[in-house]
C-alpha cells in the first residue's frame, strides 16, 4: 500500500501533506480505502461471530450441558446472529459497493466522500459496544437477535448498549445508502444509461432504497424499546397497556426487507461472475432488473409470515402465505437466467465461478425450504425449530457469504494487482462447500423431528445429527483460516494481474490497470 500512498502524495490539488499510518485510514475519503476498510472490518467480525458459532456447535455436540452456562449459550446465539447480519454481511456488501460502484460507473469517487468516511468509522464503535457487552454485569444480550419484548425490556445494561449499537449500525447503512443512490443516479459516465448498468450496480441501487425505507423503521422500533426500558413508556409492555405482538409487526416490517438487503447484492455479484466465466452475456438482463425490483416491492407485504404462530385470522394467514409464495416467481426468473447464461457457454471453473455455481444450487435449496415454511399450517409445526435454522443458513451462508467469497476472489486481483493461488482457492471452496452442507443439511431433519432452536440441550434421539453438524461446523469454520491466508498472501504478492484479469470479463472496472490506481476516472469515460 505504501507505493500507492506515495503515488497519491504527488497527486496534489493544493492539499496539505497526506497523513500516514493509522491517520491515513482514519481520515481517508477515498472510495477504495473505505471499501477495503469495510471488507477488513467484515472479515474480523466474521471470525468473531464464527467463533461464537463454534462454541454453540461444541455445546451441542452432546445432549446435556457440558461446556457453557445456558445463559451464556443464549448470549452466543443472539450475538452470533446480530454480528453476522450487521457486522459481516452488510459491511462486506458495503465494501463491495464502495470499491466497485464508482469503478463500474466510471465515476471518480462516491458522491459524498466525507459522509462515506463517517459511515464506515462509526461501525467499529458499534462493534465495540456489542463485543464489550459480554464483559458487563449480566453479560451480553440473550433475548435473540430479533430483540422481542418482553425479554428485551427486562434485561440489564447490555440491552441498552445493544440498542445504541443497532442505532449506530442503522445510521451507518443509511449514510452508505444515501451515498450509493446519489452516486448511481448522478455520477454515471456519459452514455451509461440505467439499463446499461452492470447488474451489481442495479441490485445495490435497489438494496439502498430498501435500506432507506426500512432502517429508520428499525431505529423507531428499538427507540420504543429504549423508552419502554428507561423512560416509562408502554409501547410493548403489556402491564401498561402495550402490546408485545406489535413489536413483532414493526420489527418484521423492517426485517423482511432486510433479508433481501442481505441477498440482493449477492444476486448482483453472481450476475457479474457467471457471464464472465461462461463467456456469454447475462441471459435476460432486463428481466433480471425487473425481478430484483419485484422482489424488493413484494418484500414489504410479506412480513407476517415470520409470525404465523402469534394468532392471526385465517384471512391474514392466507394473504401472507400466498404473497410470500409469489416471491418465488421473480426469484425463479433469476435462477433460470443464471442457468440459461451458463447453458452452452464456454465455461471454466476458477474459484469465483465455483462459488457462484454453489451459490445458485445451494441458495435454491434455501429458497425451497423457504417455500415450505411459507405454508402457514406447515410453519406452525416448524416454527422455531432447526428447520428454520437450516433454511436461513442455506440462504445466508451458501447464499450471501458464498457470494462474498466469490466476489472477493473475482475482484481481489483488481484490488491488489496480484492473482490469488488458484490451488488454495479451490481447496477453500471444496472445504467450505462440503463443510457447509455437513453443518446445515442435517438441521433440516432435526427440525422436522421437532428439535427447537436456541436451546443448549436436546433430547437423546437428536444426538447423531447434531454430532454430524458439529463436525461439519469445525471443518467449515477452520477452513476460513485458509481464506484469511489466501487473502493475506495475495495482498503481499503473487503473479501479476493484467488489467482485464479474466478472459471473459466485461465492464469499465476492467479497463483500469491492476491494482486499480488510487484515483480512477478523473475524466469520465464515454460509453458508446
Amino acid at each position: 500500500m505504501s507505493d500507492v500512498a506515495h503515488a497519491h502524495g504527488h497527486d496534489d490539488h493544493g492539499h496539505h501533506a497526506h497523513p500516514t499510518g493509522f491517520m491515513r485510514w482514519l481520515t481517508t475519503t477515498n472510495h477504495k480505502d473505505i471499501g477495503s476498510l469495510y471488507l477488513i472490518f467484515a472479515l474480523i467480525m466474521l471470525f468473531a461471530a464464527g467463533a461464537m458459532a463454534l462454541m454453540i456447535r461444541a455445546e451441542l455436540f452432546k445432549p446435556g450441558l457440558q461446556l457453557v452456562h445456558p445463559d451464556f449459550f443464549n448470549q452466543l446465539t443472539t450475538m452470533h446472529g446480530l454480528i453476522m447480519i450487521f457486522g459481516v454481511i452488510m459491511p462486506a456488501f458495503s465494501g463491495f459497493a464502495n470499491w466497485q460502484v464508482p469503478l463500474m460507473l466510471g465515476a471518480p469517487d462516491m458522491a459524498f466522500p466525507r459522509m462515506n468516511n463517517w459511515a464506515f468509522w462509526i461501525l467499529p464503535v458499534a462493534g465495540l459496544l456489542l463485543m464489550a457487552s459480554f464483559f458487563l454485569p449480566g453479560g451480553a444480550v440473550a433475548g435473540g437477535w430479533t430483540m422481542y419484548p418482553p425479554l428485551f425490556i427486562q434485561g440489564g445494561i447490555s440491552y441498552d448498549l445493544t440498542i445504541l449499537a443497532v442505532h449506530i449500525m442503522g445510521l451507518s447503512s443509511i449514510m452508505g445508502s444515501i451515498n450509493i443512490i446519489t452516486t448511481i443516479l448522478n455520477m454515471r459516465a456519459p452514455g451509461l444509461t440505467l439499463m446499461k448498468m452492470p447488474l451489481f450496480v442495479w441490485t445495490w441501487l435497489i438494496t439502498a432504497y430498501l435500506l432507506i425505507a426500512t432502517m429508520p423503521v428499525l431505529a423507531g422500533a428499538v427507540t420504543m424499546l429504549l423508552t419502554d426500558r428507561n423512560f416509562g413508556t408502554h409501547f410493548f409492555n403489556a402491564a401498561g397497556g402495550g402490546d408485545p405482538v406489535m413489536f413483532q409487526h414493526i420489527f418484521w416490517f423492517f426485517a423482511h426487507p432486510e433479508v433481501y438487503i442481505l441477498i440482493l447484492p449477492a444476486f448482483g455479484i453472481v450476475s457479474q461472475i457467471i457471464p464472465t466465466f461462461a463467456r456469454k452475456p447475462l441471459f435476460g438482463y432486463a428481466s433480471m432488473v425487473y425481478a430484483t425490483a419485484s422482489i424488493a416491492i413484494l418484500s414489504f407485504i410479506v412480513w407476517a409470515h415470520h409470525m404465523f404462530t402469534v394468532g392471526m385470522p385465517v384471512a391474514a394467514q392466507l394473504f401472507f402465505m400466498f404473497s410470500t409464495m409469489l416471491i418465488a416467481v421473480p426469484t425463479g426468473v433469476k435462477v433460470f437466467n443464471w442457468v440459461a447464461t451458463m447453458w452452452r457457454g464456454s465455461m471454466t471453473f476458477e474459484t469465483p465461478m465455483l462459488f457462484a455455481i454453489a451459490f445458485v444450487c445451494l441458495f435454491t435449496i434455501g429458497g425451497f425450504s423457504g417455500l415450505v415454511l411459507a405454508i402457514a399450517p406447515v410453519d406452525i409445526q416448524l416454527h422455531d425449530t432447526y428447520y428454520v435454522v437450516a433454511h436461513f443458513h442455506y440462504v445466508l451462508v451458501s447464499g450471501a457469504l458464498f457470494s462474498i467469497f466469490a466476489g472477493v476472489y473475482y475482484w481481489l486481483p483488481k484490488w491488489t494487482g496480484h492473482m490469488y493461488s488458484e490451488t488454495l482457492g479451490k481447496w477453500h471452496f471444496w472445504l467450505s462447500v462440503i463443510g457447509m452442507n455437513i453443518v446445515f443439511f442435517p438441521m433440516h431433519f432435526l427440525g422436522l423431528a421437532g428439535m427447537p432452536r436456541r436451546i443448549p440441550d436436546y433430547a437423546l434421539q437428536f444426538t447423531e445429527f447434531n454430532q454430524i453438524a458439529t463436525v461439519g461446523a469445525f471443518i467449515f469454520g477452520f477452513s476460513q483460516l485458509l481464506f484469511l491466508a489466501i487473502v493475506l498472501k495475495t495482498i503481499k504478492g503473487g503473479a501479476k494481474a493484467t488489467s482485464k484479469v479474466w478472459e471473459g470479463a466485461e465492464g469499465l472496472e476492467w479497463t483500469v490497470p491492476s491494482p486499480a490506481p488510487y484515483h480512477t476516472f478523473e475524466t469520465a469515460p464515454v460509453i458508446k
Partner: protein
Amino acid sequence: MADGNAKMLTKLVVATLAMFGFGFAMVPFYYKICEVTGINAGDEQTLVRNTQVDPSRSVTIQFDANVNETLPWRFKPEVRTMTVHPGQLVQVEYVVTNTSAHPIVGQAVPSYGPARAAAFFKKIECFCFTPQTLAAGETRRMPVMFVLDPAVESELHTVTLSYTFFDTDKQAVTGTAKRG
C-alpha cells in the same frame, strides 16, 4: 453535479426521516386495524361466555324501589318491567338522588316476590352489596347485574325485585311506629 448531489441528499434525508416517523405511526395504525377488524380481541375471548341461556322460556321481571321514610332520598328504577330468558345475563340501572343538604350513607336491602324466587335470583353485581354515600344533592346511577337461574321452576312467570334504602346512621322506622 455537486448541486444535483445536494438536492438528492435532501430528498433522501427527508425520506429517511419520514420512514422513522412511519415506524411510530405504525403504533396507532396497529391498534386501529386491530379494532376495526377485531383481530386482536383478546378481551372478548377471556370473558366467560354464558352458554346456559334457555331461549324457550321468558320470565317478566318487575323492578320496584322504596325509600325508608327517615331517608330524604329519591330512588327509582330506570325500567319498570323487563322480559328475560332464564340464564341470560341482564344489567339494569337504578337512579338515586340525595334531596337533603348534607351527605348521607344509605344501604339498600333487596326482597323478592314471590319469596321463593330469591333462591334463583343470582345477583353478580349490585349497589346493595355495599353502603352508598351520597353528597348533598348528588344523583347517582347504580347498576344491578343478575342472572335468573335456568333451574327456576317453570310455573314462575313473574318475579318482582324490590329494594328499600335505609339510612345506616339512624334507627329505621318500621311498621306503624311514630317518628322520632
